[in-house]
């Protein structure tokens, strides 16, 4: 297991390397002159040249890349063009709200997704199954921004139960996390159903039933344990989609997180922040995938001993 983990850890280095080149190229792919962008439209030619030297844009591209890489490794992500603050501080301020939003969404998604999946699999081809699966495919098709606005309209505007946006108290987390988690719950439900249905056909389940175990014990203790292996992998991968989804949901709920910072930066063309955020999201996603792979290896002996 240790060797496997090390091998996987080393395996992400080339991907991270190419991702960093990709993100570095990002700023150079923008039409127009980055130095002019940073200096502002009214800056004189001399000022633009000064900015160019300051940013090292007059150096060869390869040298620029290694300077960029060196700075990232030291935690220097540049300065925001909008607020003139270090990008690192901008991101640090916004990290926790997004982190907690993602965690809460995942909690809802797992609870409801598993429940719907198990009910659908055990009541196969009955109304519970049809309702559950129709609900799941609807969950995948729901535009999260619409769901969010409808929830605000009902629970905040009409009933006044929850705030319409921002972070005021624990209540502020409910609507955004439900909105963000709905799609993931749907994916987990569909996956749990198909995985559990496969397991329920196995011989050892028939043995369990034949020796008179209660159906609940067979499903929850015997079948679900094995059915969970692929579901856990899938759930882990959904974390990445929550990160992406948070961009939209944070905009709907005026959430002071990373997603909204990204959208604000794109509209302001604040490239250092966009660059840093893309790197951070990619890094998080790659790390989550790695953790999922290692967990999968720990749970599944067939992978572990390969």
């Amino acid at each position: 297991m240790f060797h496997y983990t090390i091998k996987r850890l080393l395996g992400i280095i080339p991907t991270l390397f190419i991702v960093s080149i990709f993100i570095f190229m990002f700023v150079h792919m923008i039409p127009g002159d980055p130095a002019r962008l940073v200096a502002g439209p009214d800056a004189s030619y001399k000022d633009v040249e000064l900015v160019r030297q300051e940013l090292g844009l007059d150096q060869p591209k390869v040298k620029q890349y290694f300077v960029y890489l060196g700075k990232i490794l030291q935690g220097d992500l540049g300065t925001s063009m909008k607020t003139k603050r270090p990008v690192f501080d901008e991101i640090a301020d916004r990290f926790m709200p997004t982190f907690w939003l993602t965690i809460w969404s995942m909690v809802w998604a797992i609870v409801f997704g598993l429940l719907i999946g198990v009910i659908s699999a055990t009541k196969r081809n009955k109304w519970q199954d049809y309702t559950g699966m129709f609900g799941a495919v609807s969950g995948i098709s729901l535009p999260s921004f619409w769901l969010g606005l409808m929830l605000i309209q009902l629970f905040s505007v009409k009933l006044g139960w929850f705030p319409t946006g921002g972070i005021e108290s624990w209540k502020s987390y409910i609507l955004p996390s439900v909105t963000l988690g709905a799609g993931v719950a749907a994916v987990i439900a569909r996956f749990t159903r198909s995985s559990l249905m496969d397991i329920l056909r196995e011989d050892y389940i028939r043995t369990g039933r034949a020796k008179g175990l209660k159906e609940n014990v067979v499903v929850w203790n015997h079948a679900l344990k094995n059915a969970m292996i692929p579901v856990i992998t899938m759930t882990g991968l959904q974390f990445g989609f929550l990160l992406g989804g948070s961009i939209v949901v944070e905009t709907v709920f005026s959430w002071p997180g990373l997603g909204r910072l990204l959208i604000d930066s794109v509209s302001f063309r604040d490239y250092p922040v966009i660059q840093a955020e893309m790197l951070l999201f990619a890094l998080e996603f790659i790390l989550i995938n790695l953790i999922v792979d290692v967990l999968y290896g720990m749970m599944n002996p067939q992978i572990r001993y390969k």
Partner: protein
Amino acid sequence: MKNGTVDLHIKDGRQEAEKVRTPFLEFWRKFKKQRIAMIAAFFIGFLFIVALLGPFIAPYSAVEPDYENILSSPSMQHLAGTDAFGRDIFSRIIEGTRISLFVGLSSVFFSAVLGTILGLVSGYYGGWLDNMIMRICDVLFAFPGILLAIGIIAILGPGLGNVVIAVAIFGIPTFARIVRSSTLSIKETLYVESARSVGASAKRIIFKHIFPSTLSSIIVYFTMRIGTAILTAASLSFLGLGAQPPSPEWGAMLSAGRDFLNTAPHVTFFPGLSIFITVLAFNLLGDGLRDALDPKMKD
């Protein structure tokens, strides 16, 4: 019955050719059993007609303001009410159908063409080429959700055309992976080996022999992907990065209605409902196609 052979049935001692089942007929036999997917297919057909006839069937203009009818609630005159400029929301939704279907289909078409070529080449040749293509896919996969599309828009600038490009690039790696994995297994089959042994060129083997066998998974994924593409494009427009006002794009309409959530919720409700139903129809059709085309589900 496979590949157009004739099913022979013995009946009263006589042999009679009862049915000729081509792969398409076999698919159709399975597909038409799935009622929900059939309904979805009919609904999508209906959407295409609406998209084609858009301006002719819309009761009002989609862009002309009518300041005497600002934010009116749904009524017999305005089935889905009017927006902040007095424009009929129902007419705007009808005209927006064309935009959503265009964005969905064109972006997925580009993803499918490029992804399929990359997947075929990668799977067939293997080696450094495969390694390189798959590493590039890994990099594109490293950006979760719509982040990659947002990054591309940040470079290209907002606008519907750029949304198509962004959503298309966002879909390429998935097609490439799906086609690559099918190619890997198909290239080991006997018929590909015999084609190679009679001296068929690599190009011929890839496009004449391997590509048709990957087609079923491409079709299934293509359909499922249209829903995602429509949703992504609408999300980008909602975020202000896609279609710009006064375009009747559904995501942009929804975004414009946010300010009137307290007083006129119908402005956001109907465009959102349209996105939801359209994406749902493509997803249900995709599910049905998968069940009918996936060999594992064959009865």
